[in-house]
């Protein structure tokens, strides 16, 4: 199996007033294509920062990230945005749905950005919501949905452009165990059916049973994998 992400000597520091905080301290990593990989670690270990850098939401202070051979952080803003839109589906701990948009509108947005076709995007978002058993929720606003439903809408939004990678930052952090299991089952099913790569951040060790690989990140360095 080939690596979809290759990370070389990745460092990230933040400057707060005159104090420099090193969050990632030289990470070397390969993420295999088509696998579910968990990044496990205590809070403050740099998990989210790593995920943001892999998703080009943040830039490294030093080091390189390759996505199928492309040096991501040498791309300009427009290319990075386009790359994110086509290749990455983000899922966060908080559902981060847009409150002024209906459920189906939230789902269709990435597809609308890509195709600029409102009706096509609408149709696809309906199909996806249906596949996630949310067909009766398409015209609801996010605040009218339960926590589990909100997260499923967020999953639908992450999947609509059929991205190669799903980057999930504590996707079950706000859910009870029943909904957490349901979300992980969905991930597993998608991974099995479409071969998408999942990179999931969690501090919940119970979830790692759903993964193919676990990377432990402690204090900005990888402990073992």
């Amino acid at each position: 199996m080939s690596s979809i992400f290759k990370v070389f000597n990745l460092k990230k520091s933040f400057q707060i007033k005159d104090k420099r905080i090193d969050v990632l301290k030289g990470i070397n990593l390969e993420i295999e294509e088509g696998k579910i990989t968990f990044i496990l670690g205590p809070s403050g270990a740099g998990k989210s920062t790593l995920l943001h850098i892999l998703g080009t939401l943040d830039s490294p202070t030093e080091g390189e990230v390759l996505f199928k051979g492309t040096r991501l952080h040498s791309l300009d803003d427009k290319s990075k945005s386009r790359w994110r839109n086509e290749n990455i589906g983000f899922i966060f701990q908080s559902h981060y749905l847009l409150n002024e948009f209906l459920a189906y509108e939230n789902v269709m947005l990435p597809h609308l950005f890509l195709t600029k076709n409102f009706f096509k995007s609408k149709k696809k978002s309906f199909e996806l919501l249906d596949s996630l058993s949310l067909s009766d929720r398409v015209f609801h606003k996010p605040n009218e949905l339960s926590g589990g439903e909100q997260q499923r809408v967020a999953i639908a939004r992450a999947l609509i452009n059929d991205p190669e990678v799903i980057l999930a930052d504590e996707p079950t952090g706000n859910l009870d165990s029943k909904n957490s299991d349901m979300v992980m089952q969905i991930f597993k099913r998608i991974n099995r059916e479409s071969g998408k790569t999942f990179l999931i951040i969690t501090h919940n060790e119970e979830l790692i049973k759903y993964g193919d690989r676990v990377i432990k990140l402690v204090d900005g360095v990888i402990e073992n994998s």
Partner: protein
Amino acid sequence: MNYSFFIAVKHLFGARKTFFGYIVTAISIGGVFIGVAALIVVLSVMNGFQKDVKERIVDVNSHIIILKYFNEPIDDYKSIKDSLKEFDDIVSITPFIYSKGLIQFENWTNGVIIRGFSNEDSVTYGIMKKHLKFGKFPQKDDELILGVDLAEELRVHTGDVVRIATPFGSTETFGSLIPKVSEFTVSGIFDAGMYQYNAELVYIPLRKASEIFGLSGKVTGLEIRIKDIYKAPQVAKRIEKKLGYPYRTNNWIELNGSLFAALALEKKIMFLLLLLVIIVAAFNIITTLIMVVMEKTTQIGILKTLGLSERDILRVYIYQGLIINIIGTISGLIVGLFLCFLLSKYKFIDLPGEVYLLDKLPVDVQFLDVIFVLILTSIVSIVSTLYPAYKASKMDPVKAIKYE
């Protein structure tokens, strides 16, 4: 549908965190609305004022006047009339007598401008007939018509006999002039629509004027009306060239140049003052958009994770400014034009004629002014969106999504 526009509409009119958000949006739309409506109404009233004053001036005064140097009387005006036959622009040529005198009725006196005109002069006759408010036109030599304000000052009515004293043609006694006094019956009272004319002008028959001013058949000058009043300076120049010395011409534009320059300046100043309303509206737009950017920090971050570029975000906020501008401008335009219509149709405001020359508010909506207001408002609105839009586009998505 353009996705940036779709998001812009949702951000502006979708669910807001506070009701205050809606009020701020309404205020910015209202700001543009008031600015545009006020500009359109005020500019149209200024145009109307200018047009009305112009029309009244050229109505009573003619377009071009032929005089002799040193205001010598003209005796061969018929030959002048003949020599100007080749001018296609000329509608009418009329001899007139113009001088000053004193008018008296019982204990009331006033200085007046006396104009002698011919009853055969159909153009002047037509115009004065239009303005005649009471009575009729002079039928006999000892009848006159005068302006309403003058009539009011003298307390005269039609049928009253007034006396006019002129310094000309009188006998010299002991080295001083004795004014010549003639009696006239007031046959009519006119309202020319301009206080200056209504308070000063007296029309008497040409023959009588010639007699009391001792002109013995001569006239002061010739009044010319032309097809295109705005060509008056050029036509006047050609006439002057044709007639040569000792004739000279005046035209209405030249005679009232300072008045029109003042009106034009006034319009410019009003425009600049009202531009301030638009600038305040622009600040409202900036405030609204900054509020939206602050409210939507997380959303901007999410949109970036979904693949919107900085340029797309910039566009979202420029669209929001444009939406505010378009709604404000269109509603301002409609209400402004409607107000202009109402002002032209109904007399809402009574203007004191002594102060404003005119007694009601005239309106003239000029297409170019409206277009100019629309373009200017749009430019100001677009410029006002740039800073908030730029700030939103440069928002760090990581910080934005951590913000919540």
